[in-house]
Structure formats: C-alpha cells, structure tokens
C-alpha cells in the first residue's frame, strides 16, 4: 500500500465535516434554506457510513466513546427530522439550523480531536483503507 492511501479515511471524513459545516454556515448567514436537501442527504450518508463501517471498530476498543458518538448522531437526526417537517418559512426554522450546527460542531470537534486520534492507533492501514472504500461505495450508491 502506498503512502498516498495512508490516513485517507480521516481526510475523507474531515472533508465531509468541512463541506457540511460550510453549507450550514451559508444557510444561517443568508437565511436561505435552498441547500437543505443537500445538507440532509450529505449528513445522512456520512452518518450511515460512520455507523456501519467505522464506529463498530471503535466500539470494540472504546465502547463508551463509541456509544456517545452514536447518541450525538441520534440527536443530530432528531433535529434534521424536525427541520424537514417544519415549514422553511417558519420563524423557528433558522434557529433550529443554528442548534443543529452547534450540536454538529461539538460532535466534529470530539471526533477529530479524540476519536480519529484513537482510531489511528486502533486500526491498521489496511483496515483504514477498507473502511474508506466501504464508505465511498455507500456514497456512490446513495448520492
């Protein structure tokens, strides 16, 4: 395996974080709900990929941290679901996006500063590459 593919998994997941955070910031700043379908799709696929292929590996080594991550996703999904069923012109819609962004910012911070660091030690390069490919495959099917 070449050096190029090392740590590709974490770059990919961080790339997702950055992209979705950017879209959320735009939505809030411009009070423009037009990107919401894209945000929702991206988040759903990203969370599904992590939950199916990445978190189970963390769960084996550090159950407590993994379980908290699942719960953070779960709260994100609750708010996403509310955004989906609330009228885009409802005055609570943008405040709900702000809360979603805070929840995700906190989760991303924990993931990038703690979980990815741990995962690098837990996973072999081959395992990382396998997870990266599984997540790419899921993205190509779903997006």
């Amino acid at each position: 395996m070449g050096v190029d593919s090392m740590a590709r998994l974490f770059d990919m997941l961080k790339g997702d974080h950055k992209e979705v955070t950017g879209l959320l910031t735009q939505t809030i700043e411009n009070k423009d709900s037009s990107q919401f379908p894209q945000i929702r799709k991206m988040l759903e696929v990203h969370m599904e990929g992590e939950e199916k292929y990445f978190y189970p590996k963390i769960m084996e080594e550090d159950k407590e941290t993994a379980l908290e991550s699942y719960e953070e996703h779960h709260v994100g999904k609750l708010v996403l679901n509310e955004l989906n069923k609330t009228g885009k012109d409802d005055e609570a819609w943008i405040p709900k996006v702000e809360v979603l962004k805070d929840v995700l910012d906190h989760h991303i911070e924990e993931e990038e500063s703690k979980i990815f660091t741990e995962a690098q030690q837990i996973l072999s390069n081959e395992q990382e590459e396998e997870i990266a490919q599984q997540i790419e495959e899921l993205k190509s099917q779903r997006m």
Partner: protein
Amino acid sequence: MRLGVVNMAEFNNVYDLLKNDHNMVKGLIKDTIDKRDTKNFDEIKVQLEIHMMGEEKYLYPALREKDKAKMDKSYQEHHVGKLVLHELKKTDKDNERWIPKMKVLNDILDHHIDEEENQIFPKARDLLDKDQEQDIFKKIKRSKSLMEKQPMKKILEVR
C-alpha cells in the same frame, strides 16, 4: 420523595437565582455520569423543567422583544434538551445507551449555559431596567415555589 428546595431568600437578583439552578443541575448530572447512578434522574428532570419553564415564561419573552434571533435560538436549545430528557425518561435505566444519552444532554446544556451566562445574562442586564428585572425575578421565584410545594411524583405525572 420531595424536590430539593432552594432557599430563594439567598438571592438578590434573577441572574444569581438562575445561575444557581445551572450549577445545581450540572452537579447532579456530573454525579450521575461519574457514578453511573441513575437515582437522581427524576430530580434532574423536574429541576430542568421548572427552570426552563420559568425562563421561557418570564425572562425570554422580555428579551425576545429586543433580540428575537438570539432568543429564538435559546428556545430551540431548550427544545432539544427536552427531546433528550424525554428519551432518557422512556429508555430503561440499565440500557447501555442511557449514560451516553445523559452525556449528550450534559454537552447540550453546557453549551446552552455558557451562552446564557456569558452572552444572554450580561445583555439582559443592559437591556432590562431594574423594575423589569425585579418583576421577572418575583415571577420566577413564585413559579418555582409553587412547583416546589408539589410532591415530585405529581409534577412528573403532569409534565
């Protein structure tokens, strides 16, 4: 079991009273997580609900007239807190997801409390005049003492 009663005569203003609530609930939640002991959950739930109700009925509306966007977000932060509280209530205490859910509630509240104490309360001190502050203080105290006279079981049933 009865609700832990706060001696409200100790406080001179509404902000100190609300900050005391924050510290008390944070302490109970930290204990729950550190000791993995769910016995204080009813107390946490009732204290949070009484606290949120007081803010939403008396403090937030006065501030919302001045800064609608900021206060609409505070209502939504409470709302997400209530969603997680509700899940904690309906999830078995011995489910392995119960403590992780409590940790998520803790993170949500930490963030909300930080915003409230460092942004909203200082702003409220600027925006509200003394009479308004006293009026809100009195109403929140009255609402808390009404709730605290109820046995906790009864509050949990209605809410």
